[in-house]
């Protein structure tokens, strides 16, 4: 299935009783198959912006267009079945085993049992879990890293045309996080699903992003490819954000990434 382009057009969100707009007139376009990272500190609106795509957050102004259709025109339940969703707390269903969790969206879509069974095994292998060992495990028998692998498998089970990931690796330790990031790059490049990825971790953004969107107080501060964002931050805010931490590592990492990318 073709990956869906996603457009935000003058999107504004205001929560009742909040002093300012959570999202303030944001416009942004994601090409089909692109991995865009929303980067910023907590409270900058990155999760809110992500959740407008599958209508878990309603707009006060503007529109979000997925694959040419304004999402407000679609039935939210139908819309969500076509968009993968991964959250930091994972949220595996405690009354289902691993296979049943992965099979949730395909079974909602009415796939046959045999198609679901095959797909579950395929997905577990894709996220690096042995189907025979994990298929019938209870969710409380999984480590944090294993649980999030299952969470990713569940999100991509029905071959969504877009994938939303809200700090998916924020709760796992550094070693596991790095492994998961590496595998995510592999999985997303295989699927070529349009992916919107929220994080506050600058290194994670540099590792994963085709483009990075820096958000501040609900507004876009800068949009650029990682190398440019690092070398030419547009504002003091972006400079401070990307140059706090291990600067030398980042410089070499991004230079190396640029070299590998250039033809």
């Amino acid at each position, binding site marked *: 299935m073709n990956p869906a382009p996603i457009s935000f057009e003058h999107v504004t969100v205001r929560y009742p009783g909040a002093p300012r707009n959570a999202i303030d007139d944001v416009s942004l376009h994601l090409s089909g198959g692109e991995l865009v990272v929303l980067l910023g500190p907590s409270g900058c609106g990155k999760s809110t912006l992500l959740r407008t795509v599958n209508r878990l957050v309603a707009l006060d102004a503007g529109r979000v267009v997925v694959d040419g259709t304004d999402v407000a025109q679609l039935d939210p339940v139908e819309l969500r079945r076509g968009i993968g*969703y991964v959250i930091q*707390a*994972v*949220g595996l*269903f405690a009354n289902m085993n691993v296979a049943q969790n992965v099979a949730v969206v395909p079974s909602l879509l009415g796939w046959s049992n045999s198609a679901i069974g095959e797909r579950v095994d395929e997905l577990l292998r894709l996220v690096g879990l042995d189907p025979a060992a994990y298929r019938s495990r209870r969710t409380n028998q999984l480590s944090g890293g294993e649980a999030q692998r299952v*969470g990713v498998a569940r999100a991509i089970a029905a071959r969504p045309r877009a994938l*939303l990931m809200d700090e998916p690796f924020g709760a796992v330790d550094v070693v596991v996080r790095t492994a998961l990031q590496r595998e995510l790059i592999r999985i997303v490049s295989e699927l070529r699903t349009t992916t919107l990825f929220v994080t506050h971790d600058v290194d994670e953004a540099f590792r994963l992003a085709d483009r990075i969107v820096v958000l501040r107080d609900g507004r876009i501060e800068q949009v650029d490819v990682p190398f440019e964002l690092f070398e030419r931050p547009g504002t003091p805010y972006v400079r401070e954000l990307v140059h706090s931490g291990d600067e030398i590592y980042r410089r070499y990492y991004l230079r190396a990434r640029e070299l590998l990318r250039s033809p």
Partner: protein
Amino acid sequence: MNYLIAHPLRVAALALGHLELVVTALLAALVIAIPLGVIAARRPRAAPWLLGTLGAIYTIPSLALLAVLVQTFGLGFTPVFVALVVYAQFMLARNVAAGINGVDGAQLDAARGAGMSPAQILARVELPQALPVLIGGVRIAAIAMISIATLGGYVGGVGLGVLIFNGLTLHHPSMIVAGSIATCGLALGADALLRLAEKVSS
């Protein structure tokens, strides 16, 4: 004990009637209490009023309630059945609500994000996880109902209460003892069975 040994079939027949009364009342009570519990879980502001009302009903002395119900339904099976259904509401509805509220928010976020409708979230995520808590409520309700159902002997001529009230009238202590022991046996049996169900379901 003499009566129990002398008339085991009579006691068994009354115990069966007792059980029939409690089981049918319990099933009817569940049909009402599950929707009430779902409403209490969905409307956190209305929940204290709803559960508070059911709790207040629960504190009415059973003999007084039965006296009122007999005015409406006459003597027999019905007034006891209705009393049992009414009494069970508090314990059942409260546990349904507690079970649903016990499902963590991340699962609900994930369920919504996966494209489940509110009814599907209830049926596929919330109620299955509320089941052990609900069975816990059923266990407590069943024990209370087995004990309250002895009043059926007084107003309806059904259940093991018949032995207790006839024994009182006839000054026949061993009849009272037989009815009491059999009632305790039912309660202990129900407790053991439902404890097992609670364990298996969680």
